[in-house]
């Protein structure tokens, strides 16, 4: 069973076709990698899936439902969470609050309950606090919980962003270049982290990454995008040997 299917999706901005006729499927617990040279349209694919852009043609099927055209917050509610290429934490909020926001979509209490604060309100707030602390514990960030997100070191910010996405309880996690700007040690840690997330939460992950060591090291399957077109798909070994991929990255052989 595939959790996500893109069926002949096109994304056009005026005369520019950023993604053309892309069909790709992600299995329910698959770790799929997406690679491609700069400007290939990888982030555009993410934006199409998460509703930031609406595909010009084609459809995005998630969990058997057509979600193209839905708003980003609705898509997040269905169970797709993402991180961003350049970290987008809530900088002035603490690490704790960043995670707290992710639990917002399942809140039972709303505007008036939050003002009146009757008994049920405090029960739910306590539940949320416990949940946030539990997540912080898993990721070993409990001690940083009260620090503003912006004050954390870069690698930790990336981790908090992944953690925040996971806190929404997704069935599919989209990671946009999580290793960007990390040093080799951090990259190794990140690979271990992604693997452990997949095992612990048993979810599907779609990963954009430039670092071939990371992609080849953890992805079960990889597809390659070049100028908005899928040029190859397969295991790490197949991709490595594929002449089209080599051409896209290194240029035509003379």
């Amino acid at each position, binding site marked *: 069973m595939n959790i996500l299917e893109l069926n002949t999706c096109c994304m056009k901005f005026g005369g520019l076709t950023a993604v053309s006729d892309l069909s790709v499927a992600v299995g329910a617990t698959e770790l799929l990698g997406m690679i491609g040279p700069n400007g290939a349209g990888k982030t555009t694919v993410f934006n199409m899936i*998460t509703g*930031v852009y609406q595909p010009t043609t084609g459809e995005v099927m998630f969990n058997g439902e057509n979600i193209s055209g839905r*708003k*980003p*917050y609705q898509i*997040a*509610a269905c169970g797709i*969470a*993402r991180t*961003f290429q350049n970290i*987008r*934490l*809530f*900088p*002035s*909020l603490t690490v704790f*609050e960043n995670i*707290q*926001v*992710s*639990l*917002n*979509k399942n*809140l039972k*209490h*709303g*505007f008036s*309950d*939050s*003002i009146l*604060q009757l008994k049920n*309100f*405090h029960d*739910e*707030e306590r539940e*949320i606090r416990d949940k946030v602390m539990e997540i912080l514990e898993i990721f070993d960030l409990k001690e940083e919980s009260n620090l503003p997100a912006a004050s954390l070191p870069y690698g930790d910010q990336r981790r908090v962003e992944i953690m*925040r*996405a996971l806190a*929404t309880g997704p069935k599919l996690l989209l990671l946009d270049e999580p290793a960007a700007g990390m040093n080799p040690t951090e990259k190794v840690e990140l690979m271990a982290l992604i693997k452990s997330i997949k095992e612990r939460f048993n979810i599907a992950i779609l990963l954009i990454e430039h670092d071939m060591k990371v992609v080849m090291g953890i992805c079960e399957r990889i597809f390659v995008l070049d100028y908005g077109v899928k040029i190859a798909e397969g295991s790490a070994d197949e991709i490595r040997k594929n002449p089209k991929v080599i051409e896209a990255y290194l240029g035509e052989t003379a």
Partner: protein
Amino acid sequence: MNQHRTKIMLGVALILSLLGSFGQTSISPYYFQIIMYIGINIILASSLNLINGYAGQFSLGHAGFMALGAYGAAVITRAMEVGPGDSISIVVFPFALAFGGVVAATAGLLVGIPSLRLRGDYLAITTLGFGEIIRVVIQNFEFLGGARGFTGIPKLSNFFWVFAVVAIVIFVVANLIHSSYGKGFLALRDDEIAAQAMGIHTTKYKVVAFVTGAFFAGIAGGLYAHFVSYINPSQFSFIKSIEIVVMVIVGGMGSAVGVVLAAIVLTILPEALRGIAEYRMVIYSLLLVVIMISRPQGLFGKGFNLKKISGVFSKPKVTPTG
């Protein structure tokens, strides 16, 4: 932590404002007037802080909502023909205030839904225009007195009503902001795209902030109208909106305490400077410039830390070397 802490504080504040209202005749009318303006400005600044400071939606139309509340409430008390001495005013006045608030909140909703798709400067200009539209519309309503103004509003505002609302608005904003639900406002302010990706219905949050802020601005308008007993459209021009925005910025966007203090200081300051007559506004403006240069984030804005300040007075810690 005590779950009922904020409620107890609200109760205490309400009792204090009731007690204070018995003492209001014992101070000079001039000081009393300043105290009332302080209260009204705290309501205006705190409610705008929810929109500008917490939800991060820069609105310049707060005086428009205030005007709607002022006229809305005044229409009710005029229709009911209540005077300051009538015992029925205890029922009619809060109803009139609430009515003014609802009128303003409805306007907030009508304006909010289309204009909150805009961001930053565009939103600021749209709300500015909207505030002016309200003023001009009122000016052309003969029924509301037009440009001549609305006269003979009963003097129903007293210390209790003003400071009861001050307590309520602070209570409402604080409870909202410290709840899980309210964190959505802060997330929206910090990064709208990320907030959406985390499942926050950002448009709804913007509208809620706008409507709530407008509601309290309307009530502040009603309190003001029933204190000065005469209102005219020019009192609610965009200068008034700017005045409220200045309080929020000087206090520190998104700092409840800072905004309250700024409302107090910026209400007293022009009065305290009356002694130097014509230089009054020059000094006032200069002070604003100095504050903005030295603390662009506002007096109590980001980076303000009580511990840090108290640390200045304590002995420096000796760090072991070697």
